[in-house]
Every structure is written in structure tokens, then in C-alpha cells.
């Protein structure tokens, strides 16, 4: 069993050194022969056993004898640990590929430690501290179930197959970080993706932005998306400057800025805004960006492939490849075990 450990260890070392590569090949030969029910002929197992036990026997004969006698059991223990570790590494790799983190699909998992993303930048969020928004109920995942999404600006193609709900704020760095990815996702899937944007305001001073957005969306949808994109491209400091924000309206040709500002100050606008707040409270948000792709929620700025993996149009080539490779390995093993038996 020691050859299996040697295969992994020397396989990694073999990337950098030709000497280790040779041992890794010997280990591979040995492992392959064993799993195809043939005798290991390289003698590598004997060499490793003698090398390890010899060192112990030299320094501490009692320990050395113990290791020598139970070497196979110890090898098995380490092999099981190694296999378990490899399986977890594989799962982590898969999770990272599919969910952008090592730990899995849930929000709690997404903020855990991940070797592939050591800085945790894929799960960074700007936390909510707006007193109008209730704190997230601990242990409850963010959800859009039961949320009236019709209250929020939405782009809907004729035949939408998938749904993207994007909760972001214009002054948050992580929202700005993910925004180009979301834009790319929407453009790539414009024929099939229904896209809703929920503005999560972080201070009361920004209420007016939501109200203006609502009025814009009501007046001219294209004008709304222009306003939205311009805000996303502005710095947080610029967005905090009300005059600068209102100045954007003057640049949008499709609408009259004064009418929109007037609209945003009406009772109807306030009522809609309050309704939106109530709905946002029900989402159990932790912060921004929080992105829902169909039934899966993601917090923090993830790579594009992670969002694409959740779309119904995506083909899981990674999974298919893994299964194919597994089947091929099993077939080769069966071939050698049955037809090349020694």
C-alpha cells in the first residue's frame, strides 16, 4: 500500500525533478499492477519499507521493530488518510469550480476557508448596517421565495428559461467588482435570462436613488438601465454626492430630469419604496453582492463560470469528463485484470 502514497508524493515532486519522476513511474507501475490484481515487480515497496524502518531501527530499535512488524497496517492507515484527503480535495476542487468556494453551495459554506481562494475574495461582502433593514436571522439562508420581484426593475426576454436576481449597492466595492461579470452574463444570455436588480441602500440618504430608479423604470426602461450602469461605473464617493447623481439624469435623452425628480418625491414613490424595503427585509440578506441564479444563492463576487454553471443551458463538461475518465480507468483495470493476468 505504501506505493500508493509514494505515487502521490513522488508524483507531485516529479513535476519539479526527473529523479522523483522516475520513482513516481515505478510507484505508478506498482499501484497499477496491484489494482489489476498482479504482483508489484519494481521492488519499490521493499525499498521504501527498508528505508523507513532502517532509519527508525538505527535511532530507536524498539520503535523500528514495531514499525517493521506493523508496516502494512501503518501503510494502510496512511493510505486511507491520504485517500480521504484526496477525496476531500477533489470535492473541494469541484465545489470551487461550481460554487466558487471549497465548501459547498450554502451561504455559510461560502465564507469558509478555501485553499484555492486563500484571501477569501470570492466570498467578500459589504455587510448591511441600515437601520431600516432588519438583521438577517441567524442560520437562515437568503431566499427569494415568496418575494414579490415585480416591484423591482427587471429585464425579461420573451422566452426566459433562467432567473437572475442581483442584490447590490452603488457604493459597495464588492458590488462594483462583480458588476462587469453580471453584465457579461446578462449579455451572453440575453435571450433566456430574466434579470432583476434590487438596490440595497446602505444609508437613508440614498433612499432617493431607489425612488428615482423606480420612476425611471416606470417612465422608460432603457433610461433606467442607462442610469443604473452609469451609477455602477461611478466611484463610491461620486455616488454619495447627490448633485452628481442627479446630474446623470440630465444626460439621459429619453427622459426629462425634472419629471423624474418630481416623480421621486411623490407619495406613490414613497409607498413603492416602502413596499420594496419590506420585501428586501424578507430576503434575509447579509450584504452585497447577493446573487440568486435560479435556486442557488451566491454571496460575494464569484467568477462568471460559477453563475453560468447554474443556468439551465449549461452543459457540465467537467462532470461528464470526470465520469468518462472514471469509466475509462475502470475499463483499463478490468482489461489488465482479466486479459493480462500474470
Amino acid at each position: 500500500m505504501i506505493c500508493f502514497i509514494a505515487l502521490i508524493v513522488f508524483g507531485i515532486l516529479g513535476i519539479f525533478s526527473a529523479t522523483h519522476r522516475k520513482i513516481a513511474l515505478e510507484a505508478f507501475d506498482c499501484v497499477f499492477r496491484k489494482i489489476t490484481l498482479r504482483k508489484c515487480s519494481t521492488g519499490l515497496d521493499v525499498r521504501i519499507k527498508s528505508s523507513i524502518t532502517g532509519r527508525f531501527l538505527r535511532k530507536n530499535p524498539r520503535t523500528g521493530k514495531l514499525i517493521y512488524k506493523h508496516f502494512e497496517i501503518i501503510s494502510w492507515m496512511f493510505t486511507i488518510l491520504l485517500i480521504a484527503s484526496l477525496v476531500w480535495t477533489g470535492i473541494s476542487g469541484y465545489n470551487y469550480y461550481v460554487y466558487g468556494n471549497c465548501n459547498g453551495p450554502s451561504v455559510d459554506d461560502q465564507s469558509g476557508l478555501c485553499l484555492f481562494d486563500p484571501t477569501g475574495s470570492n466570498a467578500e461582502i459589504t455587510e448591511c448596517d441600515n437601520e431600516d433593514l432588519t438583521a438577517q436571522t441567524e442560520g437562515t439562508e437568503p431566499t427569494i421565495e415568496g418575494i414579490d420581484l415585480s416591484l423591482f426593475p427587471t429585464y425579461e426576454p420573451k422566452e426566459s428559461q433562467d432567473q437572475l436576481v442581483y442584490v447590490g449597492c452603488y457604493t459597495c466595492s464588492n458590488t462594483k467588482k462583480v458588476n462587469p461579470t453580471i453584465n457579461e452574463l446578462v449579455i451572453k444570455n440575453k435571450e433566456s435570462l430574466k434579470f432583476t436588480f434590487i438596490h440595497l441602500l446602505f444609508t437613508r440618504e440614498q433612499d432617493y436613488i431607489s425612488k428615482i430608479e423606480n420612476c425611471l423604470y416606470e417612465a422608460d426602461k432603457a433610461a433606467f438601465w442607462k442610469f443604473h450602469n452609469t451609477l455602477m461605473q461611478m466611484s463610491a464617493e461620486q455616488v454619495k454626492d447627490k448633485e452628481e447623481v442627479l446630474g446623470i439624469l440630465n444626460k439621459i435623452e429619453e427622459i426629462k430630469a425634472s419629471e423624474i425628480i418630481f416623480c421621486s418625491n411623490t407619495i406613490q414613490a414613497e409607498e413603492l419604496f416602502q413596499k420594496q424595503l419590506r420585501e428586501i427585509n424578507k430576503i434575509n440578506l447579509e450584504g452585497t453582492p447577493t446573487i440568486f441564479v435560479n435556486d442557488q444563492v451566491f454571496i460575494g463576487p464569484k467568477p462568471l463560470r460559477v453563475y453560468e454553471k447554474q443556468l439551465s443551458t449549461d452543459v457540465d463538461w467537467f462532470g461528464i469528463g470526470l465520469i468518462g475518465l472514471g469509466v475509462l480507468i475502470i475499463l483499463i483495470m478490468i482489461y489488465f485484470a482479466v486479459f493480462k493476468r500474470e
Partner: protein
Amino acid sequence: MLESIFGKKIDFNELRKDFTVLNRTINDKPIIYFDNACMSLRPKQVLKVMNEYYNKFPGCAGRSNHTISEEVNKAVEKARESIAKFFHAKPEAVVFTKNCTEAINLVANAFPFENGDVVLTTDKEHNSNLIPWLRLQKKWLIKHDVINSEPKNIFSTDELIKKLNQYKGKIKLVSVVYTSNLDGVSNPVKDIIRICHKHKVKVLLDCSQSALHHEINIKKLDADFIAVSSHKMLGPNGVGALISTKENLEMLDQFLVGGETVQDSSYDDFVVEKIPERFEAGLQNYPGIIGFGEAIKYLDKIGFKNIHEQLIKLNSVATAGLSEIKNVKILGPINASKRSGIISFVIKGKKVHEVSLLLNNMHNIMVRSGAHCVHSWFNKIENKESVFKDGTVRASFGFYNTIEEVEIFVKAVKEISEL
């Protein structure tokens, strides 16, 4: 130092100082080198003359006529003379080769065989004295046959005579090992040569293992060809020699040809060089040859009898020690004096490579394990079913080894057998 011991009783502990590698320690323990059957160590005198070549006269021999080249010529011919003297041959009958294997290959490829000729070897030959003949057999040039040993693994002269009679004049060459690297047992080469010559059959001796501690007098033995390797005689790697007589060498065709093997050449033909140069193709290993000559001088001063006695003394201690260990089985005769400096053994229930590696990792004891390039012997049906089926652990002593080292070795084998 050697001058002071010349003619006196040899102090092997004093000689040991000439082998600087023996001062080496690994993990704060001195090394114990018991792999002399594979390769002996070199005294500093040999290393010195080899360095001198590179530092003082690193030129070609037999080609240019400048001072450095002349110095190389002299040194090489001096080495040839030393080697010839050591084997009681004439200098022109000493052909330098890469090693013993190449020397045997030279005979195999240059001997005037005719279709249907037979070559005999023993059943304990190193691959170097088996494969060249098997290759010729595969090419339908000769038939190869084996002289099977007696049940106790000792050469059978009866079997030799039986084969000589069986093939009735078809046997052209008997190629036998003098001292087996497998178990250290020496063959009765004088008797073999006498019997073979009676049947007008030439004899080639593989003297790799024996040249260090047996007197090999080509005249007294009346051998036709002797093949040796320098690296088993305290000399450097990459040099060996085929030692013969002028008549026998004249009989051989050329094997490797090219530079230095011809006197003249045109686009259609060439004129063969005189012996031994006609067999020494291309630029030779001059420092190796010079080192080989120095090693021979060193050996000559100690004397093969002294070396032989020392090896038997060491082997007797090892044999006595290992014989007492339960589960240890020694290959070959139990009498150490019949196995020169070699003791091949197995520990029942332990893999041979495991034992050698444990000896190395625990005590820096360097031995060899496996089939020792005598796979054919291990593949014999009767041996396949014996305790030696997976090979042996082989400790082979040099005269520079000590009784204390052998005692550590015996203790270590006992420790391993008890694991």
C-alpha cells in the same frame, strides 16, 4: 609505505589508510563496504597517477609526436608491461578493452567460428559470459551448451568430458568463469584447460572475480584467453583487458574497427594494424589504463597469497557468525576457504533486497542483493524451488576490510533475522 612492507608481513590496517573513501561517515557511522565483487575500491596511488595524466600530460597516445603525446605513449606501454608481467604474458598479447564484458565480446565476435561450432559455458556464468554466446546462437552462428554443475554446485569435469565426447570435435571454445561472483567458488581451471586442450578446444577464462586474489599465470595455466576488469582489481572503471598469446590473437578477426586499428586505408581497402593495436579501436581510456597499471603494481606488492589469506580470514568469521543464525542459509560450500571473499546468503522469510537495504540503512553496510547478473542460474528449475529462488544477499570482502566490520555485519544480520 608499501616499500616498507615489501617482503614483510602485510599490515592490512596500514593499507586501509590508502583507501580514503573508508574514512567516510554517513549518519555519524563509518561505511562498511562489502560489495567488492561488484567493484573494488581504489587506493590513493591509483587516483594520483590518473590525476597526473589530466594535470601533466593529457594527450593522445600512438598518434601525435609531441612531448605530451610521447609521455602518454610511455605511460600506457608501461601499464601494458605491468599488466603483462602480472599475468605472465607478453605485452603485445595484452589488449585493452572497456571491461571484462567487452573482452569476452571481442573473442565471441572475432573467433573464427564456423556454422555448427559449439561453445560451452558453465551453469554459473555471469551474463557477460553467457549473453555473447546466446546472441551468436540466435544468429545461427554457433550452438551454445551448458556444463551443469554437480549437485553441490561444484564444477563437474565428468560433465565437461561427456560434452566434449558428445559433440565430437564440434566444440571450438569453452568459456568458463574462474571464480564465480555468485557464491565465490573457483572452478578447477587448470584441469578444465588440460582436458579441453586434449580435445583441441580453446579456453577462455572469465577472471573478473579471481584476478584479485588468485595467481593467474597464463603460461602455467596454458589458457588461451583471459578476460579481466580493472574495476575489480583496485583499478578505475571503464578499463579491462583481454590477455592471450600472440598466436591466439593473430587467429582472431577484428571486432571494433576504426582509428588506430589500421596501418593504411584507401576508399576500397585497409591494411590491418599489428596486435594488440588492431583490437583497440578509437581513442583509448588513457588515464584508466595508467590507473590500471598502477593498481596492478599495488596488488603485486601485496601479493595475491596475502590477499587470498586475508579474504578467507574475513569470510571465515562471517561464515561462522552467519551459520549460527537461525533462518540464515548460505549458498555454496559451508567451508569459507572454498568461497574466497564471497558469502551469499538468504534469511528465510525476508526479501533479499529488504535485507540489503536494512543493512545499508541501519549500519551503512553496503552489500548487493538479487541475482547478481547470474539470472540463468536462478531460473534453473531446481533453483526456482529452492530458498534461493528470489536471489541472495551477497557480501564480498576486500583485503582492506576488517574483522570488526565483519562482526558488525554478523550482528546486523542477526538483528534483521529477528525482526
